[in-house]
């Protein structure tokens, strides 16, 4: 048992190390000189050289990498070339924002997808079910940013019910925080909800075909109750997989939404970082994203065993 845990942890650490090397390598080939970006036009060569030295980017790549990864392993992500502040706390800040956004988006998605997906599955041979799955099909086909733009036009610009963007931390003003979260969460959640609806639908349809659901009906449960009592938990296994994958895409896909709604999350930090060639920051962000995704996968694995007793220790 301990050995297995160790093995998993080891795989995880190695994955993160490989990922870190990949990020580093990828960014090393990125054209553009961080020093020049920081200094701007008309920078003199010796100023450039001095700044490069200050950033530490004049040293061999391997040295840079080991220094960076060494720092990261001890919790130090380095200092941003641009803000000249430690990156770690900033990352945490931004991660918090993105987590709120993604969490709220996921919530919206689930609130839409669970009932809609179950409904569409139970009625998949009838018109009402087809209508729901048709709508979800359309929802999947709408680009997320288009949904965002339209939502802003309607609810912020025309009706002026909600802010068009911006971010208020929950501790500063909970009401402003929530009202600012509504539209981004909807933009993110509607499309993801449509995607999820389709998965829920097909998972439930699969479950509806299962023998044990027939058994449940043979016991005298109505089809609906049979599904509720016996189907959903089993249908949730494939849905959780998708949820895990979606969470990963959401973390990254939030970039566009963050852009439209001017939300200072990881996505906008990533875009800024790349534009400013703030390489240490970008490396940090990507590493955090990769770790987050791997962690989500890990959680999904654990959830599996909770949901599916077959995966627990067999007697």
């Amino acid at each position, binding site marked *: 048992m301990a050995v297995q845990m160790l093995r998993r942890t080891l795989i995880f650490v190695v994955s993160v190390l490989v990922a870190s090397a990949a990020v580093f390598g990828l960014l090393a080939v990125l*054209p553009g000189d961080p020093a*020049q*970006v920081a*200094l701007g036009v008309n920078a003199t060569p010796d100023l450039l050289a001095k700044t490069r030295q200050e950033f530490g980017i004049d040293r061999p790549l391997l040295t840079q990498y080991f220094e960076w990864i060494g720092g990261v392993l001890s919790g130090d992500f380095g200092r941003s070339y641009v803000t000249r*502040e430690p990156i770690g706390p900033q990352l945490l800040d931004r991660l918090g924002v993105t987590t709120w956004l993604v969490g709220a988006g996921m919530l919206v998605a689930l609130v839409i997808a669970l009932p809609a997906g179950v409904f569409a599955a139970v009625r998949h041979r009838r018109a009402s079910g087809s209508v729901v799955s048709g709508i979800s099909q359309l929802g999947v086909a709408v680009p997320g940013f288009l949904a965002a733009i339209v939502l802003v036009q309607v609810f912020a610009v025309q009706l002026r019910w909600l*802010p068009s963007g911006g*971010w208020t931390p929950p501790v500063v003003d909970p009401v402003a925080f929530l009202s600012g979260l509504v539209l981004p969460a909807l933009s993110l959640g509607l499309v993801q909800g449509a995607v999820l609806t389709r998965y829920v639908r097909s998972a439930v349809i699969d479950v509806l075909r299962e023998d044990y659901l027939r058994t449940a009906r043979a016991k005298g449960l109505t089809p609906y109750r049979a599904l509720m009592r016996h189907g959903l938990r089993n249908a949730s296994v494939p849905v959780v997989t998708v949820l895990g994958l979606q969470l990963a895409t959401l973390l990254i896909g939030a970039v566009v939404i963050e852009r439209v709604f001017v939300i*200072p999350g990881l996505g906008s*930090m990533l875009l800024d970082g790349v534009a400013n060639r703030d390489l240490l920051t970008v490396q940090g962000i990507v590493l955090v994203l990769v770790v987050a995704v791997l962690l989500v996968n890990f959680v999904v694995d654990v959830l599996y065993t909770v949901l599916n007793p077959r995966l627990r220790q067999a007697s």
Partner: protein
Amino acid sequence: STPSDPSAITIGFTAEPANFDFTRSDGTAIPQALLYNVYEGLVKLDEKGEVRPLLAESWTVSPDRLVYDFSLRSNAFFSNGRPFTAESVKFSVERVKSAAWSISQKSKMDVVSRVDVLSPTKARVVLSRPSNNWLFDMTTRIGAMFTPDGVADLANDPVGTGPYDVAARNRGSSITLKANPRYWGVKPAYETVYLRYFKDATALNNALLSNGIDVISAVTAPDSMPQFEADTRFTVTQGITNGEVVLSFNGRKAPLDDVRVRRALTQAIDRRALLDTAWAGRGELIGSMVPRTDPWYTDLTGVNAYHPEHARQLLADAGQRNLNLRLRIPNLPYAVSSAQVVKSELNKIGVGVTIEPLDFPAVWLKSVFTEHDFDMSIVQHVEPRDITTFGNAEYYWGYDSPRVRQLLAEADRGSAEQQVSAMREVAATLANDAAACWLFLFPNMIVAKKKVGGLPLNQISESFDLTLLRRVGS
């Protein structure tokens, strides 16, 4: 901000300062927020382009135009409580020349040979050669006044003498300025100013439309202007900036080293039509690198005016057939829009154009600006009086004219009248040589709630000057 709080105002911007230290980070965002608001210099530039007193109440210039004697305000204090004195001037100016400053603009201080403290309120600056540009440059960030114990953490804690002090910052989203209670001058109209940042022009517009902000500092989506103009909630102003949108030619390389080719390309482009399509007709046409607010402005739009037949002829004369040019532009809206029109126009005279948007600033700076790997580019040149760059043969456009260099030097050295006439000649020469093709002068479009007055018509200094704002009504 709560719209109900009359002493607060929220202003929307597009470019967010990465930090507060403009001595070491380039870009327009930091001085836009801090200069004249948090930091003050001895002098400032007003919206008509005139140099005005600020921390210096007055100054005299010696006849040989090498010695500047400034008399300073005695009631100015830095936000950390230190008084502003002649020592501050000496410290600040010398600091620009030291390694503490690392941005390239610091070279503008090279002309200063020393600073003398004559008394707490009298400072003398001695130049190594006469320079008209120096005093003008003192209105920019390099003229900002610091105090020795206020420079420990410039990136996060700016200490200046201005009407505002940075109260809070929310990275990626906003900066809060609070009025400095010990400010020496007129108390600003708004006690609290929220500077909010929107990377996206449309997001910025929407914020105002949905009452999220009170002012758009600069509309960069010109096509959206009609919706503000039609809305009775808003005041709209349109002035100019000193940002010349330039179609630059790489003069180092054939065939663009040939003046006929450059003239042909310039004449092939209908700049009125370009402005109309690419920037909704907002902005002004200019014929050279001079905005209307400079004293030596003359209308040069007639030089190398639109004349496609003539352009074709010029190309033929230059022996250019099947010309194909790489238009490598920053991936910014104005450049992308303008480039498409330029391509379409040049195609009409048989010149092929490949548009390559480059990651800005990083890749553009590297390939175009530093490595000169381009035929043409489109960039907005926002620095004040950047016509002088044509005197630098090393500059990316590779324009090399000894005559222009000489004229520029004379202008800097000479009297005010000499300066104006020399600069006029420079502008005319550039236009004539088609050293570049000046597409248009970037407009300054501000939209604000009706309750906000005092909006600066033109944006020609580095600062978004909050001291100008007024409250209207109520």
